[in-house]
């Protein structure tokens, strides 16, 4: 496993909820990333860790390989890849994202 893959694995396994996004929660640089942050906030996530892929080209490329997923944002809960913005939205609308987050931070 390359250094960047190991770095990503560390990030997602040592933090319960990690969002890889473009920009920051305060200043998202993409509509999908912004929507992802809003959903997580609406779910009451307090200890959200975000990683700005625009600030780290290695992570930006590495994260695409990590979960075999070519787009940003990417949500990880307890080390597991949950999905991108579309999947988050569907889960949120079904109430599944809220449940998953409750068990993750409990």
């Amino acid at each position: 496993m390359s250094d960047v893959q190991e770095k990503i694995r560390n990030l997602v396994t040592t933090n319960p909820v990690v969002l890889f996004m473009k920009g920051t929660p305060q200043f998202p640089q993409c509509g999908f990333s912004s929507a992802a942050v809003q959903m997580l906030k609406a779910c009451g996530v307090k200890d959200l860790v975000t990683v700005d892929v625009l600030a780290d080209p290695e992570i930006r490329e590495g994260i695409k390989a990590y979960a075999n997923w070519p787009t940003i944002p990417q949500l990880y809960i307890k080390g597991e890849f949950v999905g991108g913005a579309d999947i988050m939205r569907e889960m949120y609308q079904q109430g599944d994202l809220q449940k998953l987050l409750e068990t993750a931070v409990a």
Partner: protein
Amino acid sequence: MLTAEQIKNYIMQDLSCDYVAVQGNDGQHFEAVIVSPQFAGKNMVQQHQLVYKALGEHMREEIHALSMRTFTPEAWARTGNEITSER
């Protein structure tokens, strides 16, 4: 400029679909609805991965944003949508 029709063709070349609809006319942002029997038994992540795989390098180089919803034929029927002859 990349068109919705091209994206639809890329998807259908690699994935047997009952229905594909792609919208978007700015060459960068697209929305897709895809119904395929190949989604059966797969979770949403795996379903989207099949679509990304079909798009391959186009996803990396040309498509800036693709929002998608994926359905098995059964799930699509439950939404009340008819599978039309459009393919």
